[in-house]
C-alpha cells in the first residue's frame, strides 16, 4: 500500500473510531443526539458522552496503543515474530495480583495496587534471570518469560478453582480483557506518550538492532543499553495496558505484523503507526463489545481477535 495513503488512513481511523465509540453504546441514544451531547453544556446526552463513552474510548485507545507499541518493541528486542506483550509474563503477574485481590475481597484500588505489584515483580524477576555477566541472551529472556508466565497461569487456574462461583465470571472477564472497570485514564496516556517518545528517539537504532546484536555493534550501536531500555519501555507499556484493561490478547502481536505486511518496516513509521492502528482497533472492538449484546457486555479481547484474525489472514493470503 502506498505510504501516504496508509498514513492518511491510520490518521483518519483514530478520530473516526473514537467518534464511533461516542455515537454507539448500550443506551438508546441516537448518534446525532450523542454528537450534540459532545458539544452541549449539560443534559443526558452530554453526561453519557462525557462521563461514560469518551473516558472509555480514551481508555481503549490508550490500552490498544500501549499493547501494539509493546508488541512492536518486543518483536525487535527478541527478534521473534511471535513475541507479544504477554510473552514476558508481565500480564501473568498482574493477573495473579488482580485475581488475588478479588479472591480476598479487596477494593478496586487494592486490586490495582496488587496487579501493579505482580507486574513489576515478574518484570524484575525476568530481567534479573535473563541478564547475567553483562550480556543479553534473547532466547534466555524469552524462555524465562514463558516459564514465569506458565507458573503464573498455574496459580491463576488454582485461584479460579478455589474462588466462589459468584466471583469467577468477574475474574474471567479480567483475564479476557475488560475495559468496563477502566479507572483514571491519564496515567496510561502519560506512559504511552513517554514510551513512544523514547522509542522514537531510538527508532534508527532499533532498525539496526533488527539485524542482530553483533551486526548492530559493527554499525555503531551500543547494544546492551538499548536492549535494557527497550525491555523496560515495553514492560512499562504492558503494565499500564494491563492495569487499564486486563489481559487483552491479539493486539500486541498482530498489529505490528499487519503493518509489516502492509509494507511498513522502518521503526520510525512502524512505532507510531502501531499506536494508531492498535488504539483504533481496540476502540472499535470495545464499541462492538458494548453494543452487540447490549446491555450485556462482551469481553473486548474476544472482539479484538474476531476483528483482527480475518484481517490478518487476508493480508497473509495476499502476500
Amino acid at each position, binding site marked *: 500500500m502506498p505510504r501516504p495513503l496508509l498514513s492518511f488512513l491510520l490518521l483518519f481511523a483514530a478520530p473516526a473510531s473514537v467518534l464511533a465509540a461516542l455515537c454507539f453504546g448500550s443506551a438508546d441514544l441516537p448518534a446525532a443526539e450523542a454528537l450534540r451531547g459532545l458539544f452541549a453544556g449539560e443534559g443526558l446526552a452530554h453526561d453519557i458522552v462525557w462521563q461514560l463513552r469518551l473516558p472509555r474510548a480514551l481508555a481503549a485507545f490508550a490500552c490498544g496503543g500501549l499493547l501494539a507499541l509493546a508488541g512492536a518493541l518486543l518483536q525487535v528486542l527478541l527478534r521473534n515474530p511471535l513475541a507479544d506483550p504477554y510473552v514476558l509474563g508481565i500480564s501473568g503477574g498482574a493477573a495473579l495480583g488482580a485475581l488475588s485481590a478479588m479472591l480476598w475481597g479487596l477494593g478496586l484500588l487494592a486490586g490495582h495496587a496488587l496487579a501493579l505489584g505482580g507486574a513489576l515483580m515478574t518484570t524484575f524477576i525476568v530481567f534479573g534471570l535473563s541478564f547475567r555477566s553483562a550480556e543479553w541472551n534473547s532466547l534466555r529472556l524469552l524462555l524465562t518469560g514463558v516459564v514465569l508466565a506458565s507458573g503464573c497461569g498455574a496459580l491463576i487456574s488454582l485461584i479460579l478453582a478455589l474462588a466462589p462461583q459468584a466471583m469467577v465470571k468477574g475474574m474471567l472477564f479480567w483475564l479476557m480483557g475488560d475495559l468496563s472497570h477502566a479507572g483514571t485514564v491519564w496515567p496510561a496516556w502519560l506512559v504511552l506518550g513517554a514510551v513512544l517518545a523514547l522509542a522514537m*528517539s531510538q527508532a*534508527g537504532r532499533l532498525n539496526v538492532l533488527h*539485524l542482530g546484536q553483533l*551486526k548492530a555493534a559493527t*554499525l*555503531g*550501536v551500543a547494544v546492551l543499553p538499548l536492549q535494557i531500555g527497550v525491555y523496560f519501555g515495553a514492560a512499562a507499556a504492558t503494565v499500564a495496558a494491563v492495569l487499564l484493561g486486563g489481559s487483552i490478547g491479539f493486539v500486541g502481536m498482530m498489529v505490528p505484523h499487519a503493518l*509489516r505486511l502492509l509494507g511498513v518496516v522502518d521503526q520510525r513509521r512502524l512505532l507510531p503507526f502501531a499506536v494508531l492502528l492498535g488504539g483504533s482497533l481496540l476502540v472499535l472492538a470495545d464499541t462492538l463489545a458494548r453494543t452487540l449484546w447490549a446491555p450485556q457486555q462482551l469481553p473486548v479481547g474476544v472482539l479484538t481477535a474476531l476483528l483482527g484474525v480475518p484481517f490478518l489472514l487476508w493480508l497473509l493470503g495476499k502476500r
Partner: protein
Amino acid sequence: MLACANLSLGYPGKALCLDLKWGMRPGECWALLGQNGSGKTTLLHTLGGLRTPLAGVVTLDGKALYDYPRRDLARRVGVLLQHEDYGFWGSVTDYVLLGRHPHRRSPFGWSEEDRHIAEEALAQVDMSWLAGRPLDTLSGGERQRARLALLLTQQTGICLLDEPLQYLDVRHQVQTLELLRGLTDAGKAVMLSLHDVSWAARYCSHALLLHDDGTAESGKSEEVLTRARLEHLYRCAFEEVGGGVLLPRPADWRGSV
C-alpha cells in the same frame, strides 16, 4: 593503522592465539588463513572491537579500540560477519542503507547522499536490479552480495571480512576480490579470512597464518604462502599445479604430513 600487541585469544580450555603482534597499514590487503576452529573469526571480531581479548590490546592509529566511542569506531572499521541472522523484513535497499547508520545526521530519514552511496554500492556488487526485492527472498549468494554492499555503504577505512566468498559463484568471487583490490588501491586496508590459498596468493599483498597451537606467522604473501608453511598450517600435502598455484595433493587429503 590497525595493530595489536601481545594479543591472546581463546576460550576456557582452548588457546586460539597467543602473544600476537601484528599491524595493517592503509593500502594493504591481508589474507587470514588457518584450519577450521583456529580462531580466524575470533581474531576478526577482536580486531573489529566486538570481542574483548584474553590479554593484549588492539589499537587503531595508536589508540586502544575500547577508547573509541562505538559510533566513531563504526565509521572507521567495518566488519562483514560470517553469520548474520536473517530476520530483516525490508527490501535490499532498506537493508543496505543501514550501513549509513554510523554516519547518520538526521533521525528522521536517509539523506539523498546516503541513498546515492547505497545505490552505488549495490551497483558495485551487481545488485541494482534487485534493489527493491525483499531481502528474505534472495538466494544465499545474493544475500552475501547485499551484505558486501552494506559494508561498502559504511565507507570505512578498514574492512574486516569473515569468509566474504562464501555462497558466491566463481564469477562473483572474482568480482568481490577485484572490488576489494579496488578498495586497497584507494588506500583502504582490508583483511579477509579465506580457505582458498590460490585466491590469497593472487589477490592479497600479505598473509597471516593462524596455527592450531596458538602460534601465528605473518608477512608478505610471497614470503609466507610457501608450500612448507601451508603444509604445516593445514597438516596436508600441497603440490604446485603450474603458475605458482599451490593446491592440496588429492592422494594426501585423508592423511596428514
